[in-house]
């Protein structure tokens, strides 16, 4: 292969890699913003809003560093206008989906606390 052609291929490859990284970074920024919004909803006292947010947070494993502390805080100390046990259930499911091993101790503390953790609302 002649030098100019090889150089051209390498340049194209470099451009493609750069583009991919740029798109990825853009997508990640977008996801981070979405997760941020979901975390705000999670902190709402409104059960429907918070429950939907907990369910959606499972879809962003790459942002687990952001979402896991919020989910742990939710199960540890929050209450909602209704169905708090269902809310804790949803948050726990999200933590399991995100493979949050550091959530085990807070989950065990929750069990120990005696707060309701079993479904109390009809679906």
């Amino acid at each position: 292969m002649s030098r100019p052609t090889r150089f051209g291929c390498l340049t194209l490859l470099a451009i493609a890699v750069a583009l991919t990284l740029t798109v990825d970074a853009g997508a990640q920024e977008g996801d981070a913003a979405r997760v941020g919004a979901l975390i705000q909803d999670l902190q709402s006292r409104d059960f429907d809003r918070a429950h939907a947010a907990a369910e959606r947070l499972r879809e962003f494993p790459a942002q687990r560093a952001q979402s896991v502390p919020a989910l742990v805080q939710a199960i540890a100390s929050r209450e909602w206008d209704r169905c708090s046990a269902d809310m804790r259930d949803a948050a726990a499911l999200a933590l399991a989906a995100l493979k949050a091993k550091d959530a085990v101790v807070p989950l065990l503390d929750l069990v120990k606390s005696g707060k309701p953790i079993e479904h109390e609302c009809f679906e």
Partner: protein
Amino acid sequence: MTPADRLAARAADPFCARGVLGAIHELADSTHSNALANLITAGTFRPELLITLGKVGLPRYANFIGRYKDDAGAEVRQAVATALGLIDNVTVALPALVHLLAARTAADEFPVRWEASESLIRIAKRKDGDGARRRLAELLSERDAMTVTLGARALAAAGDARGVQKLRDLTTHADARVREEATLALGALADVGGREALGRRLQDVSLAVRATAVYALGRIGDASMAATLRAAVQQALAYEQALEQRKQRGEPEAALRAQYGLGDYDLRETLQQALDDAGRRPLRASRRRRARSGAGRARLADRRPSRGPRWGMGVALVTPRNEHRRTGEPGAAAVGGAVNQFRENH
């Protein structure tokens, strides 16, 4: 409820719809053993946490788990049975599991015994499972027939032919519940060699045993079994109707259920599942040869998929009313013996 449904219910996930406990079970590791043990001691969600401790606990926790094998609660004893099958300590687990399998103290004991047999299967299948297989073989000479049945089931599932042979023998036991469990086990194992023993159960005095025989034959047969199974269920439905009439005349329902398995299983649904199961398997080579010949062409009709509703085929062919019109003979007698037909076909 069908026999397949019953087996599925026995394998139900204890953490289904329990997010917090399920998450702990999923995420915990051996470093959480002490915290789990403390909660168990306090009595909080004891069954679920025992199972988790069995999954993640260090081997020495087998002693801790084993302490609850005589707990007053059946759910706790059942959880102990599950946990001991998970933890890596055969020395402690094996005798405790045999104790749980052989226990006959309470009416609600069967789920505990079943779970113990499941755990013994798990242990017996391991590379170092020789000890478990030896213990299971010893159970075959126990006095209690259900202990023998569950032991045989576990031994068979671990690949030991002695278990399979014992189960086949138990299909003729005097106790209908033993026959039912033995037949169910042979079906779950898909024991092809048990064909004849299972075929005899299609005429059992207990409807529950007949239903489990249909399930089992569906598991081991192929599409050529369809006619036999339909005929057997047709006969069973007529028998069921006769028992229902006895109930309406004042015989206690509980007695009819205990003695004849009335109401234990949905016969039509059991048939449909068995037909679906058998239909998934290709005809054996000898049957394919017969099918290609003129004599076999009529039987091929059984292989054609039904165009009716999913249950339509089974219902249309097995109602005694229809049978009467088709053959001009009373429904139950027209079958001509499911066992004889079974022998002709196989």
